[in-house]
């Protein structure tokens, strides 16, 4: 059981924690954090499994993860902007209850 399995399984665990957070937590900020956790989980699996050959890490998963990190920060920035705007307009921090009808 060399170290790539530790990170691969850790990534799988973090991805499923992210799935739990996305489904179970109603607060929108928790959902954004959960999405980032899912992303980090996938990245861990990607680079973890890219290290199966000792001493020669595979550069392609690293390039994919670099692209993934930038895309995830873009998604998070948009998500937070929408959450804050929704809070300013309706005062709600979750999607469960219906907002008052205010079409700006």
């Amino acid at each position, binding site marked *: 059981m060399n170290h790539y399995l530790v990170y691969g399984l850790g990534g799988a665990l973090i991805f499923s924690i992210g799935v739990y957070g996305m489904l179970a937590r109603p607060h929108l900020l928790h959902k954004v954090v959960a999405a980032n956790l*899912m992303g980090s989980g996938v990245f861990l699996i990607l680079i973890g499994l890219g290290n199966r050959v000792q001493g020669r890490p595979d550069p392609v*998963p690293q390039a*994919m993860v670099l692209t993934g990190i930038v*895309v995830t920060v*873009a998604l998070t920035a948009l998500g937070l902007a*929408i959450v804050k*705007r929704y809070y300013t307009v309706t005062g709600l921090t979750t999607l469960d209850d219906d907002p008052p009808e205010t079409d700006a």
Partner: protein
Amino acid sequence: MSIAHHLPALLVVTPLAGAALTFVTERRRDPVVAVLTGLTILGLSIGLVIRVLAAGPFRYEIGSWGAPVGIDLVADGASALFVLLSAVVGLAVTVYATDYFRGSRASVCGHGMFWTLWLFMWTSLNALFLTGDIFNVYVCLELVGISAVALVTLNGGSQALRAGARYLFSSMLAAMTYLLGVAIVYSATGSLDMGILRSTLVSDPAAATGLSLMVAALLLKTALVPAHFWLPSAHGSAPSPVSAALSALVVKGSYFAILRLMISVAPPGFLPGVDIVLGVLGATAIIWGSLQALAQTRIKQLVAYSTVAQIGYLFIVFPLARAGTDVFLLALGGALFHAITHALAKSGFFLAAGSLASRFGYERIDEMAGAARSAPVLVMTLALAGVTMMGLPPSGGFAAKWMLVSAALAAGQWWWALVLVTGGLLAAAYMFRLLGVLLRDSPAALNPPSGAIRTEWVPLSLAAGAALLVLASPLVTELVNTSVLVLGQGVTP
């Protein structure tokens, strides 16, 4: 290397450059830049269709590194067809938007950004239709997702923001699951290019699970029934040119990615049972979506649920792939033909419904009685588009459904044909209900047409195009025969 060879690259870079330019230039000149970019893309896409028909499908090696090391763009019949479709519908939406965002709406702070967001969406659609690399599909899906969410939340109202938030979280979930699938497939097979995957994939449970994860994520993006919860509110509360583009093009983008994965990448029998599941979900989408559309009281919600139903038709093609190549090609022709007619008819329908709603000032159907007398062109457009979506004989919609039904019967799976016919009847039900209200001869209080005449003839030309598309069916069948095959040995049973 002739200019024609660079068409796929130019088709992605042109809208990208247009988007960057509209962000830098004066806001006044943005519509002009957008329309010019649209015209260039239309020309390039017509060139691509001619090139594919003449010289057959081809691969474009970016940086000429070749498949395993670099990324390849793939231009075959199906992708050329969808690129041309997005060019036609895109140009129509752009022309309509030049008026929609001109009047009082231009003051709303977000609307200045419409043109840049719209051209970014156009880039992502062309890139998604042309890419041959599964990780590149992920980046394109992100581009589509972010531009679509930004366009839905453009008016900033509480409904639009709520729909945008739900749309964003479902596309985040889909994107992460898709990337997980790519991670598993790459770790199992060691390659990212679709052509190489097709030739190296043999019955490998890990890669099969990865591929199923990717298809499942794309189902969420295509809003196939169990995963359609985000679509009605998103398409309903977006500005009408945006909802036209969403229903006509964005949903087809992720469907095309599923087509690539299921047909061009997975060899027959590699994903046991998945095609049946897709067929069953498609059938439930047709029935359930049409029933929901029947129950809607607002015109945009009705059209959005009709999209949920019409998407179902596209998934009937997967179980028919078991019945051999020629039956499958007939079914695929029917599905692509349906995708095109639905795109044209639905975008025309949404734009006309948007103009009508802005003329009335509200969207409740039963308060729009007697609209025909004072807005004849708009109601005629709605009727023409409705006829096509119902699939009544002379229209393109009929030809598509006819091809699908005959393929289903030829494959001996008659139950799909039954579902298709009931779907057509249900579509007729909710269309006639809407048209009945609009054609009632009670006086309707309409404010005078504020927009330019293009808010009327653009939707009309789209709906007319959808109806007359039956004339173009030989072109479609020809393109379909040159599609998907370039990636693998064809679909033998």
